[in-house]
């Protein structure tokens, strides 16, 4: 089975600073991959390069069997690649429902044709907000939300694009134990529906229970990639990240 | 083509001198735009303000313009610091610097220009000093002192800025603030205060450049607008925030402008800098020494 996502030796520098150094990564369709590593190790840079927000200087990214290197970020989203931002980036001038309407209009519509009337759009927005527990705040503006609620909105907006691969970048920071359980359950449900998920997190309990496979990034290099129980016993991983 | 070598070499010499001066004018924007990421398009307005102040003090009190510029430093520094404070509180803090910050500076530029028109009128103004008039002759080359002296002063200023940036704590903090505000806070330096100092400095430099400008050429209020193109062309071409790049780009622009004015006429001169700017933005926005 060919991988859904194949990151082939990508590197990224910022001036003299090497953010990513020859990263190799494969994600199989339907897989649940966890990505961990210390702050500044390059996790978000990797996501940015995969999604087209940043351009890698060398190497290539293949998604769903095709090279996507030259494609703009929005084109990659159209192909089924969606991500949430580590620091939430909501559309400030719009209500929560409208925030979700954007990916519906511009991605789902674009890919599947205008098959939804205004009413359908509204109910889909409501459904998505309900999924993350924000249905009551549908008409409010992002500035009225707490940080935690904004992260949930981020996640809902990424899911709204009906992706084949969802990259959740630290969606759980600051959540309570039961909220973490809820988000995990949501991600598992989405995965069962066929969405491949890459979970980037610092909350080890969540990562361990969710991931089928675990990759570790330290200082721009991948130092481990395998079964979670093996990876956490890897001495280099313990030294670089877990031991802290 | 029938180019007189004499004309050519003098055009290049003039361009070199002009370039040195342009570097000083742009140095302030290298700091505010290159390092602080503040698009202060009102910078030329402060240059012209400096020119008029030099004119005023020269005509009424006979003070030499270069001396005036040194006296003006603290005043314009304070002005710059004040403007940054307003800018920070109104825009940067709220994250709206893109649209509103630009409009703010544009408004400032406009208000400055129109105020000068109201106070001084649109006639050209000159200063008088001993070194305006005579030239040095080096073989084929004529170096008018009114261009040579400001060029030397400008290069001295430029050198001083470069030393300040690379060798003092505050200077290095300014470089740092452009790259990593968090690291700066960990160094127990207040980023806002550093930025305020930097912006005050950039305006002070503008004023000095203005005093030098009026030595080189007579001024009237709309001269500032021509400099917008030059300043940003040099800044972008030189690679934002790079002092050596700014100098190279400034000299390059000075020479090309001088050659254009000599061989095609002065009415094409504004197009040179703005054309440079457009081309650079379109094809090499990272500048000559691109990052």
């Amino acid at each position, binding site marked *: 089975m060919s991988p859904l996502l194949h990151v082939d030796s990508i590197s990224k520098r910022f001036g003299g600073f090497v953010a990513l150094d020859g990263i190799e990564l494969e994600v199989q369709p339907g897989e649940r991959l966890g990505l961990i590593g210390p702050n500044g190790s390059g996790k978000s840079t990797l996501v940015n390069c995969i999604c087209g927000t940043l351009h890698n200087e060398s190497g290539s990214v293949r998604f769903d069997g095709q090279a996507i290197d030259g494609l703009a970020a929005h084109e990659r989203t159209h192909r089924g690649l969606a991500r949430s931002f580590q620091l939430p980036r909501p*559309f400030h001038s719009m209500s929560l429902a409208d925030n979700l*309407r954007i990916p519906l209009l511009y991605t789902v519509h*674009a890919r599947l044709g205008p098959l939804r009337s205004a009413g359908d759009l509204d109910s889909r927005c409501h459904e998505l907000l309900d999924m993350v527990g924000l249905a009551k705040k549908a008409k409010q503006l992002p500035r009225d939300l707490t940080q935690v609620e904004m992260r949930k909105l981020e996640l809902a907006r990424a899911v709204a694009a009906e992706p084949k691969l969802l990259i959740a970048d630290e969606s759980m920071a600051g959540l309570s134990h039961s909220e973490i359980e809820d988000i995990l359950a949501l991600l598992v449900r989405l995965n069962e529906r066929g969405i491949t998920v890459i979970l980037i997190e610092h909350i080890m309990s969540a990562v361990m229970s969710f991931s089928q496979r675990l990759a570790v990034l330290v200082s721009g290099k991948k130092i481990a990639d395998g079964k979670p129980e093996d990876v956490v016993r890897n001495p280099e991983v313990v030294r670089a990240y877990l031991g802290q | 083509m029938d180019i007189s070598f004499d004309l050519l070499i003098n055009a290049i010499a003039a361009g070199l001198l002009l370039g040195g001066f342009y570097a000083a004018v742009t140095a302030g924007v290298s700091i505010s735009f290159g390092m602080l990421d503040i698009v202060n*398009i009102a910078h030329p307005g402060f240059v012209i303000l400096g020119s008029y102040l030099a004119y005023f003090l020269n005509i009424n009190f006979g003070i030499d313009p270069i001396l005036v510029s040194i006296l003006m430093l603290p005043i314009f520094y304070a002005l710059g610091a004040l403007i940054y404070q307003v800018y920070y509180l109104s825009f940067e803090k709220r994250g709206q610097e893109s*649209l509103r910050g630009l409009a703010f500076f544009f408004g400032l530029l*406009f208000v400055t220009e129109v105020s000068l028109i109201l106070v001084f009128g649109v006639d050209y103004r000159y200063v008088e000093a001993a070194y305006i008039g005579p030239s040095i002759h080096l073989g084929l080359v004529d170096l008018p002192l009114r261009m040579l002296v400001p060029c030397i002063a400008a290069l001295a200023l430029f050198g001083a800025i470069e030393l300040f940036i690379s060798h003092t704590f505050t200077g290095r903090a300014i470089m740092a603030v452009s790259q990593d505000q968090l690291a700066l806070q960990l160094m127990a330096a207040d980023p806002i205060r550093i930025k305020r100092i930097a912006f005050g400095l950039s305006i002070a430099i503008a004023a000095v450049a203005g005093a030098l400008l009026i030595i080189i050429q007579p001024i009237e209020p709309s001269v500032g607008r021509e400099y917008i193109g030059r300043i940003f062309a040099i800044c972008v071409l030189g690679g934002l925030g790079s002092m050596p790049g700014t100098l190279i780009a400034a000299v390059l622009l000075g020479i090309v402008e001088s050659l254009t004015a000599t061989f095609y006429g002065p009415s094409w001169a504004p197009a040179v800098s703005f054309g440079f*700017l457009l081309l650079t*933005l379109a094809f090499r926005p990272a500048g000559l020494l691109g990052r």
Partner: protein
Amino acid sequence: MTIVNTAKFSLIAIAVAAAVMAFAHWYNVDYLFFASYTILQFIVLATAWNILGGYCGYVNFGSAAFFAMGAYSSVFMHKFYPLPIPMLILIGAAVSGIAGFGMGYLTLRLRGSFFAIATLALAVVLQTLVVNWEYVGGSRGAYIIRPETIEFAGIQINYIEYLFGLMLGLAIIALVTARAIERSQLGFGFATIRDDELAAEACGVPTLRLKLIATTLSGAFMGMAGAPFPYYIGYLQPQSAFGLEYAVNSIAMPMIGGTTSWVGPLVGAILLGSAQQYATVTISSAVNLLIVGLMLVAFVIIAPNGLIGLVQEHLRKRRRS
């Protein structure tokens, strides 16, 4: 739904315009036609600017360039092959629209601040080109003799009334278009660009394409506003066509009126335009420009969402209590 909505609004707008036209025709004071023409022109310019500036968040400092291109394409056609003004308006729209597209294509991949500087550069480059172009008069300027009257729908009307009517029509078209965009998917996309371009891309919004649409539309409308200008003013000089007052006013009017809605530029243009007409006559044109500049700075600091924003805030507070 939106189409019916737009059709209804258009009908209302046309009705209002017809009423204004009828009243103006009956009242028939030349000076008022001249003054109102300027205000209507600013409505078009402010609305055009706002499509790119207010809706998308990309500041254009070179409004004068697009305006002047419309004006100078009329001058060119006048010498080359005279055409009726409505045709010139279409030509002006095409010329400035293409210019807007071209400039956008060159610079929109860059940050917003670079784009803004590039627009300034464009204005100066174009002005220099025009100043050196003898065919359209160069720095000496171009004269266009305006006929006294013109026949329209079987009656003879003053030429200035004809120009007034044309500009009124343009203003209506601009306002209807802006309003339609605002409420459409396109306008929604524009708002995401303004709010957070990176997030917009991640959601699948083709930001470059939308920005190009905005620059092209914005440029086209400015060109349309400029096309009748030589006939209005009779003697066109580069300094007046490329004048800084166009740049300042097309920014100040939407920002003071309010940038998030089509009403803002309308309000801004009427208020500021009328105030300037009054000030120019009573005080001086320089002082009047100074006031515009000061108001721009003041509003940008104190009331970032303009007058409309202040009203909306007030209504929201009333609703809460």
